[in-house]
């Protein structure tokens, strides 16, 4: 049912309210657009200097005005990969536990557990990582240590989203599987996972996006080494956000432009990952609700 049409002043105020609300919504587009434009603009000097070789060069030598982003792109991807390898089984296990195994009185404390983990600020994880974690287990400051810290930070988001997706499994499917004599695990494999697969992939990708963008915790424990295009997880490495945070203070104009170019690269990669992930999750949820 619609509101009655208004006349005069009231109509004006009503319309003004609607336009302010629309303006507020449009802010999202405006800010995203501004971000894209301003940081791309400021990164142009280094692209003038190096062209597209910026993405393929492995050396990073500011005194020579030589900037190659490849090892940092690799580092970002590598630590995110390690983080996923650790976080995904744990998150999925936790989500399945909370929805399929745990009796109802245990579920609420589990939610609090996840909330607590999500509530710890990333800089505190970084502090713990550099002063405690890296001193034990021979970890030092390396890709692996950064991967572990990132894993801890993305577990809450993957778990929560997975839980939401899994809970949309039709109870009929689950009960049918159990009636046919499946064990609990077989039921999960037969009814829950096939139904949720798409959404789970989306949840994992959102976790991936978050892991790639994490700056501070990674910067403190990753080791900040150059030229590390390696699979050796215990060696010190570097990632795009860590380099930007570390080298910004002393950078001259061209160097700053190179760092901003790294930010542009990071921006594009995380946006693409998030776009795909959001589309997958939304599609899966809509299908689950029968739309």
């Amino acid at each position, binding site marked *: 049912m619609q509101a009655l049409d208004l006349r005069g002043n009231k109509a004006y105020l009503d319309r003004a309210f609607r336009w302010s609300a629309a303006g507020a919504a449009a802010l999202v587009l405006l800010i995203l657009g501004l971000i894209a434009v301003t940081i791309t603009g400021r990164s142009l000097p280094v692209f003038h200097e190096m062209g597209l070789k910026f993405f393929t060069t492995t*050396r*990073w*030598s*500011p*005194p*020579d005005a*030589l900037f190659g982003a490849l090892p940092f792109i690799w580092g970002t991807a590598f630590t995110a990969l390690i983080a996923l390898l650790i976080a995904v089984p744990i998150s999925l296990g936790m989500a399945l536990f909370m929805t399929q195994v745990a009796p109802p009185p245990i579920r609420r404390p589990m939610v609090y557990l996840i909330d607590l983990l999500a509530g710890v600020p990333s800089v505190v994880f970084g502090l713990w990582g550099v002063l405690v974690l890296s*001193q034990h287990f021979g970890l*030092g*400051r390396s890709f692996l240590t950064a991967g572990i810290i990132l894993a801890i930070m993305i577990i809450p988001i993957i778990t929560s989203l997975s839980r939401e997706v899994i809970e949309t499994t039709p109870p009929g499917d689950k009960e049918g599987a159990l009636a046919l004599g499946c064990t609990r695990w077989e039921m999960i494999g037969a009814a829950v996972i096939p139904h949720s697969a798409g959404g789970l992939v989306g949840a994992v990708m959102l976790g991936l996006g978050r892991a790639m963008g994490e700056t501070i915790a990674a*910067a*403190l424990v990753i*080791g*900040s*080494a*150059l*030229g*590390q295009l390696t699979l050796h997880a215990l*060696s*010190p490495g570097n990632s795009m956000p*860590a380099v930007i945070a*570390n*080298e*910004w*203070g*002393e*950078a*001259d*104009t061209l*160097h700053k432009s190179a760092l901003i170019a790294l930010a542009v690269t990071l921006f594009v990669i995380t946006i693409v990952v998030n776009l795909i992930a959001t589309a997958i999750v939304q599609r899966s949820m809509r299908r689950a609700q029968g739309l």
Partner: protein
Amino acid sequence: MSKSSILTWALAVVGLSLTAPRLASAAGTTLNGSGSTLSKPYQEVAIEEFKKAHKELTINYGGGGSGKGRQDLADMVVDFAGSDSPYKEADMAKIKGGEVLYFPILLGPITVSYNVSGVDKLNLSPETIAKIFQRDIKKWNDKAIAAENAGAKLPDEDIVVAHRADGSGTTQNFTEYLNGAAKGVWKLKSGSTVEWPSDTQAGQGNGGVAQIVKSTKGAIGYVDLSDAKASGLKFASVKNQAGKFVEPTTAAASAAGDGIEVKPNLLFSALNAKGDRSYPITCQTWVIAYAKQTDKAKADALKAYLKFLVKDGQKLLSEIDYAPLPKSLEDKAMKQLEKIQVK
């Protein structure tokens, strides 16, 4: 919680932040500086001491690196900058406020700290240091190191090189030293960030490098004396121009200061200084300020603070492991203060 109480709460927060009386000094002047982290410890003690006599002033020194300081001053976002090196030619055009004056404030030894058990005294020449840091020498019992350390029990262990992850004036000075003293041997050039070999470790700030050296067996890194002593590290004696191996002490840094050539604009380099007792990796840092000032109160505060840094505060330096300026340089800096004028 009703809508009105939330609103009141929000207004209170905003109101508090906009109208709260200044908890610091009353209607006084504020001086802001940023830049070199090498000079930050001195700025910290100096501000504390200076304020005892000047309670109405607020001085903030934000650190952030020499490059940031120079940039902030060029953009006139701060009143003074701390910098371990002068403006580059290319950047001179971007300085908005006119002529800049360089005021040297201290000399600081950069140690070559190491962590090798059983070796309490280590002698290193610039060529050997260069080869270690660019990974031409990879083991502690290498011939080159043994040659300079007769009688020392050097283990057959890998050398772990530690350097700065963040851009830094300390790196700039250390690499410049190697550029000059190990000419032909040092390949990595000089700058606030250089292209270190990939099998090395990096730490944030002098503290980060010190942490790495302290906790890694066989590590070696360049750390300023202050942080090295605070972390309990062992440092090497470095061979100076006169051929003597000198330990990094504030006395040796002062000795380096005696042997320098100062330009009329008070720029100089204390690296690789002449003299038997000079420590060769002694670096210098300046406070940069504009000659032309527009605000009288700020100009007076600035001149008073600079005077303190250059003269009366110098006695605070040795407690924090830095070396004071030689008297001749101090006098020249005091004279340059007169060039700060309010227009």
